[in-house]
């Protein structure tokens, strides 16, 4: 057998010290009986081990008399204190973190001036833009109503004349001077899109024809090739003008719109739902100004709901199974025109119970999402 290595020797002396029975290999003992060198190494290792233990024994703590082993109750008491302290400290830490997060979130929300909904029914809304900015986007309500009242009166008169037998060719229901004036006003309105808002408002007001003396027919039917659309348009025009039509038509919350003449006012919600073929969704608590339908896209309804601090929430909605045009597939029918103030207008699309909805409002995207989550049929 080979000579023993240090590990075997160490185990030999340590197992002997502990009286736990020696190494399993009895060959070690027989080797030691024959090998004087290994016996010498074992003896040396035993002396080193004894010396090491004595060295370590000199380095024992100097404990004050009577306190060598404190009562175990002290451990239990200390453990209880630790648990109480730990739990309390943990709770306080969590509370501190929660408070910090709440304060930080509140400050962030406030700093961003986000829209905040506090009541599910009344829907008081805080608009992100300052009031002055909102006013710059759209004309004053009174001014808008005055303009549109004139326009509606002129259109009633035109419809009456058309019903009397003088039906103009499709696409040109009224001729020539007054429409030119109206078209001029529209062009003026479009051209002013890039001007400052005040300038645009002035231009629109100046271009509006005086209702009693010069009734202005509404220029209509840009899509004259669509005879079906023209027929629907005519039916809608022959409907009696109601208070709903006195509401803003040509100027919405988002400023001048090029597509405004392509849509028609629907008198009632029931009528709008009949046109769309299902129940409309709207935001509870906000008055609905107008229901619009686009003759070229039957089944698509747009509603306008006034926001408490100015501006309008526009909702375009149609049944998901409604055949959709290319325009619709791009995400919205009425909203294709770029807005002059697009930086302040958000648009979101969603689907509720088989109804596809596109919403737009002069508020932040986050605020709009909050509003749209509250939509109900």
């Amino acid at each position, binding site marked *: 057998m080979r000579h023993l*290595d*240090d*590990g*075997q*020797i*160490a*185990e030999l002396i*340590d197992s002997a010290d*502990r009286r*736990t029975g020696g190494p399993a290999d009895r060959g070690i003992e027989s080797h030691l009986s024959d090998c004087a060198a290994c016996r010498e190494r074992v003896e040396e*290792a035993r002396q*080193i*081990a004894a*010396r*090491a*233990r004595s*060295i*370590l024994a*000199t*380095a*024992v*703590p*100097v*404990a*004050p*008399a009577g*306190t*060598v*082993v*404190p009562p*175990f109750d*002290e*451990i*239990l008491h*200390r*453990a209880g204190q*630790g648990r109480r302290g730990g739990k309390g400290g943990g709770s306080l830490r969590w509370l501190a973190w929660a408070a910090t997060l709440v304060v930080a979130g509140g400050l962030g929300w406030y700093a961003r001036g986000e829209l905040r909904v506090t009541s599910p029914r009344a829907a008081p809304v805080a608009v992100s833009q300052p009031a002055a900015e909102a006013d710059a986007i759209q004309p004053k309500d009174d001014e808008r109503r005055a303009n549109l009242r004139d326009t509606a009166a002129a259109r009633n008169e035109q419809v009456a004349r058309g019903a009397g037998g003088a039906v103009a060719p499709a696409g040109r229901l009224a001729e020539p001077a007054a429409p030119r004036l109206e078209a001029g006003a529209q062009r003026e309105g479009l051209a002013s899109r890039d001007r400052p808002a005040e300038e645009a408002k002035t231009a629109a007001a100046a271009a509006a024809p005086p209702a009693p003396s010069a009734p202005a027919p509404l220029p209509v039917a840009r899509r004259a090739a669509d005879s079906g659309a023209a027929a629907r348009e005519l039916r809608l025009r022959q409907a009696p003008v109601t208070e709903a039509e006195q509401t803003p038509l040509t100027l919405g919350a988002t400023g001048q719109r090029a597509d405004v003449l392509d849509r028609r006012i629907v008198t009632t919600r029931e009528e709008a739902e009949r046109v769309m073929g299902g129940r409309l969704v709207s935001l509870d608590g906000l008055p609905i100004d107008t229901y619009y339908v686009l003759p070229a896209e039957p089944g698509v309804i747009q509603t306008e709901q006034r926001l408490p601090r100015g501006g309008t929430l526009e909702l375009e909605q149609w049944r998901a199974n409604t055949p959709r045009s290319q325009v619709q597939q791009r995400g919205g029918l009425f909203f294709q025109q770029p807005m002059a103030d697009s930086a302040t207008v958000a648009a979101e699309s969603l689907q509720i119970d088989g109804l596809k909805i596109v919403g737009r409002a002069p508020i932040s995207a986050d605020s709009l999402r909050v509003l749209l989550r509250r939509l109900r049929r």
Partner: protein
Amino acid sequence: MPTDWAEVYRATYADLVRFLYRKVWETDRAQDLAQEVFVRALDHDPDNPRAFVFTVAANLARDEARAAVRQRRHLLLIRGEPAPSAPAPDQELEVKERHRVVQRALEQLTDRDREVLLLWDAGFDYDEIAAQTGLARGAVGTTLSRARRRLVEAHAAMEGRDAALG
């Protein structure tokens, strides 16, 4: 059967304080850490309670050593204050000197050798030392043999140098 920590405490406390003392070299601190070990152990029910408390003790002592580096100045101030039941000044000085030599001798060892040596001195068998340190069972004897020899040699060197200095 749940661990009878009171019994483990009575049987292990002195060994644990000694084990910790050779790591922190502060009696009060070693006792405090030993109690802290049992405070932490109460929530556990290990298979080998003795090995478990020494494992916790080793971890605590390691944390303590790191903290001591930061608090060295403060600890020195505390150590300078005489305890009410402390030994007489001349005895205390002699004890401190002995401990200082052992401490410096132990510092000559590698961390693993020192750990194996202290566990062996605390009464651990080879299997427990292997489990505690992560060494292979067959490497414990070799490591321990080397650690003991280095301690003896380092201690002799320290004593010889101190004697030469006078």
